[in-house]
């Protein structure tokens, strides 16, 4: 069994915790977010014949008052950026976080989850914005913590990229 540490990064209230609570195995309560600033969960994915344990470091959502602790990024084999499709500024924050992560741990695989895909009528993000990111080589997925759409696919893509090295 291979294990990988990955971090989940995103602005405040983009739905990271909802993604985690529905699709991964949790042991610790959410209060760790507001105290330690991180909560470690586990997600097992199968890549071909190989089982991979993803140890998810779910970092507390960053906002103008609280920055993420980059020390938590150390040793990550990859990371997940999470943005909220209904709030344009969360995508900008994701770009900032990606830069910060790359500074801290170098170039490692990552994926972008644009969450709340079930509320597309309220989206502030247009196709151009996502296309621009795709042009930069960002693997972006429209996800919904509510319906589960795109979540497994995003995790699996990240797992494949990490195993590919």
């Amino acid at each position, binding site marked *: *069994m291979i*294990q990988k540490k990955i971090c989940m990064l995103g602005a405040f209230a983009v739905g990271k915790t909802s993604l985690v609570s529905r699709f991964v195995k949790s042991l610790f309560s959410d209060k760790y977010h507001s105290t330690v*600033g991180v909560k470690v*969960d*586990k997600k097992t994915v199968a890549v071909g014949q190989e089982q991979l344990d993803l*140890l998810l470091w779910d970092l507390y959502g960053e906002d103008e008052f609280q920055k993420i602790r980059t020390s938590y990024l*150390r040793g990550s084999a990859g990371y997940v950026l999470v943005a909220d499709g209904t709030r344009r500024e969360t995508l900008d924050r994701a770009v900032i976080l990606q830069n910060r992560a790359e500074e801290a741990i170098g170039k490692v695989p990552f994926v972008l989850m644009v969450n709340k895909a079930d509320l597309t009528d309220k989206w502030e993000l247009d196709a151009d914005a996502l296309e621009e990111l795709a042009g930069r080589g960002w693997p972006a997925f429209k996800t919904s913590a509510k319906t589960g759409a795109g979540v497994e696919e995003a995790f699996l893509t990240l797992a494949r990229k990490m195993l590919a090295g």
Partner: protein
Amino acid sequence: MDEPVKPDNGGQAAEAPYPSPEDPLGQLRGLLLAADHGQVVKLQERLDDPRSRAEDVSRVLTEAIEIRTREDRSLTDSLLPTVEEAIGISVRRHPEVLVDGLFPVMGPAIRKSIASTLADMLESLNQTLGQSFSRQGLKWRLEAWRTGKPFSEVVLLRTLLYRVEQVFLIHRKTGLLLAHVSAGGSGVQDADMVSGMLTAIRDFVRDSFGGAETDALDAFRVGERTVWIEQGPEAILAGVIQGNPPRELRTVLAETIEKIHRDQARALEDFEGDAEPFQACRGDLEACLKSQRQPGGGSAPRSKGARRYRPLFAALALLLAAVGFWAFSTVSRNRKWEAYLERLAAQPGIVVTASGRRGGKFLVTGLRDPLAADPAAMLAPAKLRREDVVASWKPYHALDGELVAARARSVLAAPQTVSLRAENGALLAAGSASRRWIEEARKLARAIPGVARYDDRGVADTDRRKLDLAREKLEATRILFARGSSELAPSETGKLDIAAREIADLPALAAAAGRQIRVEVVGRGDSEGTEDLNVPLSRRRAERVLGVLRANLPDVPLTATGVGSAQPLVPERSEEDRQLNRSVSFRAVVNDLQPPETPR
């Protein structure tokens, strides 16, 4: 030692090529080193010859091993895989060699192991007794009940000085779990996530309170548990410890993480998420699962002897209490049993022939008249349970008076109007009954067990009484005639009709009473006039009545007679008396069908 290397110009040295005159440097070297050249050549030969080198090493090998072993354990660790593999191959190929070698030590080893296990078991038993009966034990039970923890866990908590419950080997950079071991019975969460979170908390503490990269959280305490963390360059070792660990345990953890870094240096350096190579460290981690029990099982200090024997005393007290309770209940039950046997013996128709106890049950055997009281029904009033008593009764006929009387009533089918009593072999009957029952009873009574004599003088024959009453009524009837006349007055015909019906009933009543009957019609006259006239007149009167009766009662024996004034019904002192004597009356004469039986 080696032979001294002699300078010579022969042998191999002689084979060395001499420098040519055109090589002045070679000439100079030849002049300077000619004496040592042979030795150099010999040394070179020794170095090139593996056998010679092996001989050289063998001469210093033992001392070298001794010196290195004194310095550290690295030689042992290095040799360990080879030795283990060699033993494994040897066992597979030639198991008998190992068996023969181990044989002298196996017996003592097994005996020692058994003795040790027994000693542990006795110690454990003693502790269990102590914990069960002591005040401390009750306190712990209360605590277990209050906190919802199993009693065994509370005992463990209170009797251990410390116990290392879990050991985590964690990759320092990623926080990923490399290996994890836990002591039996310890609650283990998902070790992967715990490992990650522990690393996050360490990062958090270092970030929050500053410090160099090498500074880190190395201990924290949570309730009854302490977490000690030993840090290496690539990995950290975290021990979760219940209780208060000694400082020496720190050393154990430090030595372990050092050893793991030494043994797994390459695997730690190359770690990419595959923890499989670190399974080899489990032995080292398990060696850290140490524990130490409080002397005396955690009880308050007291004298060693008292502490040792307290459980024994408690067990003894319990045993005595149990014996006392058993004795009390046994005596109580025995008393109830004796009382029951006495009541049985007093019952008519029950004879107890044997009684006793076997297998916790009471036994009773004997004889019982079917008409006697039911022994099983007498158990409940005696406060004994049916399932505790095994009874065996054989039927017999008792000679007790009331049972004989009861048996006679049953056999004779005595009517309610008859009472029966048995005394000294005699059955005494009283009351009233039909002639038929009386006669049947006389025949059957002799056959009833316990009846030597039957006396029914106290039993009235109801059929005879009915016959007598009918006779008396008929004989009180008077058919009156006028003076000097033998004609029936119209006023007397009604009386004659009644008399006729009464006469008609008499034969049946007589038959029921075992008798025969005939009726005499008696004619009378008053005392006036002479007998010569009165006798014929009285006969005519009787025949006149007889004539009427015969017409209606052809089957009843009837006779008529005239007695004149010789047998007056009443003395004549008035005209009314004389009228009574001018009449016809009846006399019913009863004869026995057969001679009556003499009562016995």
